[in-house]
């Protein structure tokens, strides 16, 4: 009987021991899962904060760029037109009144166009391809270099405003970089819609640079971090004296 009790005790103890091992395993899995959840949520929160920061920066920079453009336009374009109008109207000949009216109408048009670009919602309401046309027009009008915009696929707007803002800022940065550093004779932008995928290629025939050395002034790291914020990809192809090609792709 005593040996029977020992056998029973062993069976019982082994069963309970196994049960505890399994319970321990379950508790460990719950804890690990919970810990991973907490870590993942923390990571998502950090990413969200980073994204919001990027959006804020982008908005600020676009505003600054716009103000700079407006100031330049006021000084170089509207200021000049007003001075010209003043000179024309100072002329006592009757034909100069007509000429003056024409100039004032032109000034009104320019002011309207400028006020549109200052409007906070203007960028958000603007179609992305229209923005590209405007930006290239600005570059060409400044007489800096020739520009060209080409498109492939069905044109559609970017529904996510934040993505559009970041893309707009990326294009502005690329164009600024080309103007400041590359001295190109032409800049081409190719826009490609392939389903939900938007591809954008900015090419210039400027001085180029060695992509391995990554000069900090070019803000390439900035481009990379911004495209990362909208889950996009960027590839920069460049060689000294062979121009630069920047390819971006993003799901819109």
């Amino acid at each position, binding site marked *: 009987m005593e040996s029977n009790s020992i056998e029973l005790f062993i069976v*019982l103890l082994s*069963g309970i021991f196994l*049960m505890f091992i399994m319970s321990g395993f379950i508790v460990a899995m*719950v804890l690990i899962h919970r810990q991973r959840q907490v870590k993942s949520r923390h990571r998502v929160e950090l990413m969200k904060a980073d994204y919001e920061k990027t959006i804020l920066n982008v908005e600020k920079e676009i505003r600054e760029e716009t103000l700079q453009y407006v100031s330049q336009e006021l000084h170089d374009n509207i200021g000049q037109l007003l001075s010209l109008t003043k000179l024309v109207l100072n002329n006592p000949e009757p034909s100069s009144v007509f000429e003056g009216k024409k100039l004032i109408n032109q000034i009104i048009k320019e002011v309207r166009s400028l006020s549109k670009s200052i409007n906070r919602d203007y960028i958000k309401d603007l179609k992305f391809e229209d923005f590209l046309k405007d930006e290239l027009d600005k570059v060409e009008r400044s007489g800096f270099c020739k520009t060209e915009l080409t498109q492939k696929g069905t044109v559609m707007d970017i529904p996510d405003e934040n993505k559009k803002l970041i893309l707009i800022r990326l294009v502005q940065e690329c164009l600024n970089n080309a103007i400041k550093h590359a001295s190109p004779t032409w800049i081409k932008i190719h826009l490609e819609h392939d389903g939900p995928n938007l591809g954008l290629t900015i090419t210039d025939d400027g001085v180029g640079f060695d992509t391995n050395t990554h000069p900090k002034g070019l803000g390439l790291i900035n481009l990379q971090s911004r495209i990362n914020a909208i889950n996009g990809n960027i590839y920069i192809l460049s060689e000294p004296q062979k121009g630069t090609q920047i390819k971006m792709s993003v799901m819109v």
Partner: protein
Amino acid sequence: MSSSVYLLSIFLGLAGGICYTLKINKSYKKSKIQLLILGLILFVACFELYAIYLAKSGRHNRFVYNICFFYLETFLLLGYLYAINLSKKVRLTILYFSLIYLIWGITNSLFIQDIWLTWHNYSYLMASLSILTFCLVFIFGITKNNKYFEQPLWSIPHFWNTSMLLIFYSSGFLYFLSLDFLTELDPKLVDILGSFNRFVAGTMYIVLGFSYYTPLIFSTAHGK
């Protein structure tokens, strides 16, 4: 735990499952897997009732447990584990194992252990080890593959079900394995072991019956 309390716990689990199917399942989330679990508890309730009836009328009930518990319930559980494991590899392994288990069951019944008179404890060893393995794989897979990442684990019915299967089969398989030896023991001692086993089994059926309420209980209270 006495047989009547054990039966009561099975019926409690069954009632929980039926209520869920009739009332909540309609508006919440229709799940075939939940119906499988409900069918399993119903099946257990039926064969346990029949086994108790046979025992009370002084007849052998080993073949009932052999067929219903060692084989049919195992196949139902393997079916459940097949449905919840989404990995192709695991599913295929479960399918292969089920086939092997079926062949083994037939061979065992015909040539090794008489299905009417002997406990099929070799088959049970295979069944319990496989169920334990597939449950471990499922629970481990949740963590490894970051499944159910938006919910706490305790709001997932399959987590509760597999956890209870783990606990039942880990504690029970030694008991069922040694059934032949236990009959030689003092009936009082065997009763203690049986009580403990029935307690774990009863808890498992209650959990199986009520596990589908957990998303309703936990997801909003502790979800995020």
